[in-house]
């Protein structure tokens, strides 16, 4: 099954660094797997950690959050808040038995098109290893 399995990964990227980095990867024609679908937010600090829970519930097999490197946040501090909050969420998910490979977070700057590719590849690889996350699906609820 895992050979067939194409995980669905929802990514939240900050507008200024990683989204721009992903655009750069595009401009540079860097090829990477098509499983990661991006939601643009202005700052990684905007990502409510409960989005991760929601994404997993609504059909994602993995979630990726990426923002500016520490110190490079366009809004000065947003990524620091994101880091603290998402660490807590990660701990909580792990504690409740969610495969830690379903959640990845990275710092990718606007110039790191290659790093973005690597991060995507890692997230996809991880999600494949973790397998489909059907147990938690809202959709799986029958009548």
């Amino acid at each position, binding site marked *: 099954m895992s050979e067939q399995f194409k995980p669905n990964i929802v990514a939240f990227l900050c507008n200024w660094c990683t989204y721009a980095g992903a655009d750069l990867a595009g401009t540079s024609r860097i090829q990477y797997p098509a499983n990661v679908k991006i939601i643009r937010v202005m700052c990684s600090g905007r990502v409510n950690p409960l989005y991760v829970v929601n994404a997993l519930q609504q059909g994602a097999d993995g979630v990726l959050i990426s923002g500016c490197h520490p110190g490079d946040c366009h809004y000065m501090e947003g990524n620091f808040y994101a880091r603290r909050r998402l660490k807590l969420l990660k701990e909580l998910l792990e504690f409740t038995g969610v495969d830690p490979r379903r959640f990845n977070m990275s710092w990718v*700057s606007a110039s790191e098109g290659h790093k973005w590719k690597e991060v995507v590849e890692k997230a996809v690889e991880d999600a494949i290893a973790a397998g489909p996350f059907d147990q938690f699906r809202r959709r799986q609820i029958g009548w």
Partner: protein
Amino acid sequence: MTEKPKLGVYICHCGINIAATVDVEAVTEFAQSLPNVVVARNYSYMCSDPGQLLIKDDIQESGLNRVVVASCSPRMHEPTFRKALQEAGLNPYYLEMANIREQDSWVHQDREEATAKAKELVAAAVAKVRLLEPLTPREVDAEPAALIIGAGIAGIQAALDIGDAGFKVYLVEQSPSVGGRMAQLDKTFPTLDCSACILTPKMVDVANHPNIELLAYSEVEEVSGFVGNFDVKVRKKARYVDVSKCTGCGDCAEACRVAGRFPNEFEEGMGKRGAIYLPFPQAVPAKYTIDPERCLFLTRGRCGKSPKCVDACQPGAIDFEQKDEIVTFKVGAIIVATGFDVFDAAKKPEYGYTEFPNVITGLEMERLVSASGPTGGEILVDNGEEQIVPKEIAFIQCVGSRDQSVGNEYCSRVCCMYTAKQAHLIKDKIPDAKVKVYYIDVRAFGKGFEEFYDRVRREGIRYVRGNPSEIFKRGNKLIVKVEDTLTATPLEDEFDLVVLAVGLEPRADDRKTIDLLRLSQSPDRFLMEAHPKLRPVDTASDGIFLAGCCQGPKDIPDTVAQAKGAAASALIPLARGKVSIDAQVAGVIEDTCRGCGFCVSICPYTAIELVEINRMGHMVEVARVNEALCKGCGSCSAGCLSNSIQPKSFRDRQILPQIAALGGIK
């Protein structure tokens, strides 16, 4: 508000950029099936006039009230399509874009996968756009003044342009004099104009310009606010000289107990200065400065019976009590023109720069050939035994450029030409000199460059294609070990002088500027422009512009051109007198706000405060956003337990449906 959403979805082919990988017909058909979608079309170039017209016509004829454009990155064309909506009478914020080029067709090859992904991205945009709200950008007054950081040729030119346009300029320069790197140069390529002759008048102009306030020997300490309304704090460092009294006569420098003891930065360490000094004779302002780290009185508390400079100074300008002074002001725009550092040749130990006094850098060569330089323009070098006039001279190109081993992948753009110029100047001064240039490629791409390169070669300068591997000493000669790659001949050539054509690097203190203004860096570590082609002088932050080599290596004409461009851009808010505040700011839902103040703690812009309101007869505190200060980052929102503070266009109720759509819920 509760009008039923009527969506138009437009899928761009972008020529074949998208259409070659994404089945745009299939995506269009899919979009048509999504709820509330009234029109779905695809077109070769949505951003073109006819493309935009499609949208405008549909808005007017089919009564569309929401638009999704699936095309390139919103970072590229969001403003374009917003404008199209506006022109058709629709609120510009009723737009959502699906990035199916940079983040889909360009990064995937499998047509099926790329098409499937495009569908999901479109579905997510459709899910979000239905819930978007109309927004109106607000306008606030712009402060009719500009801050320019760095007074090299870029900063000087920008300051003059803005000042001439009639606006106040604060020109801040870290060192005691304006002029920057250009002041250190002798002649400029390819015209061989005297650098000082063309620069000095401009230096004087900035000092005398009624609209320009020159803050030399000063550093920007803090910048807050936003385009049109930056608050700036500058530290004017103490010169220990009262500039209103100093006449620039130089008696003090002569008298200084430690005169001539310290390397002069302006002369690249080849000349000497004392503790009180003028960096160079044409310095502007022509005021002396005491180096607090060198001055005996300032470091030890005493200097003989009394400091000699004090005794020598007739007008009594020396003031050891002087303190740093903090100046604050408001500006509407900022230009960063902080310049560059030259590559540190010590990082290429094989060239023996630190070992052999007759291995020098290009910039040192500039001082050596300059009539105002440490040798008065006479080319004299120390071969380890004696001062000689070198007869055999080598130039090595690309030192610290195009060199991954030192982390600089880029071409510094000026070294080929300054090498040719210096070779010419040597030939001029020492006609019997034999000059060889070791190069990888010669890049003579500018106006008059190729012609100049030809001329220099005709003058007998020999160009050898090869990247020297080592310089060592044999007798009193320097040996350059190199392979001539055109003839595949290993060579060991003898020289009296080797000039390393060092490249340009980002300034070591750029980090400070980056932190100060929240700028980004490109992969080459130079400051990053908003778009490499279309917004080369803008930064990602509105109202902050780049000029000169801080953005990347460039020659003087390019620097001046960019400075003029930055000045023109900075003048836009100044001349308009108003700036638009992005409408995508945070708003508070007061009914559910708990008044906990988490958002207040989080906000990096102090844009949120707690205010007391009457809630059913109880005075309670709730958060309130100052929209002029809010940048819409949304960090407050993710930290709000009751989700009562929400960035417009990025509300939870707008993002959660996106998540659902990407999760596969249509």
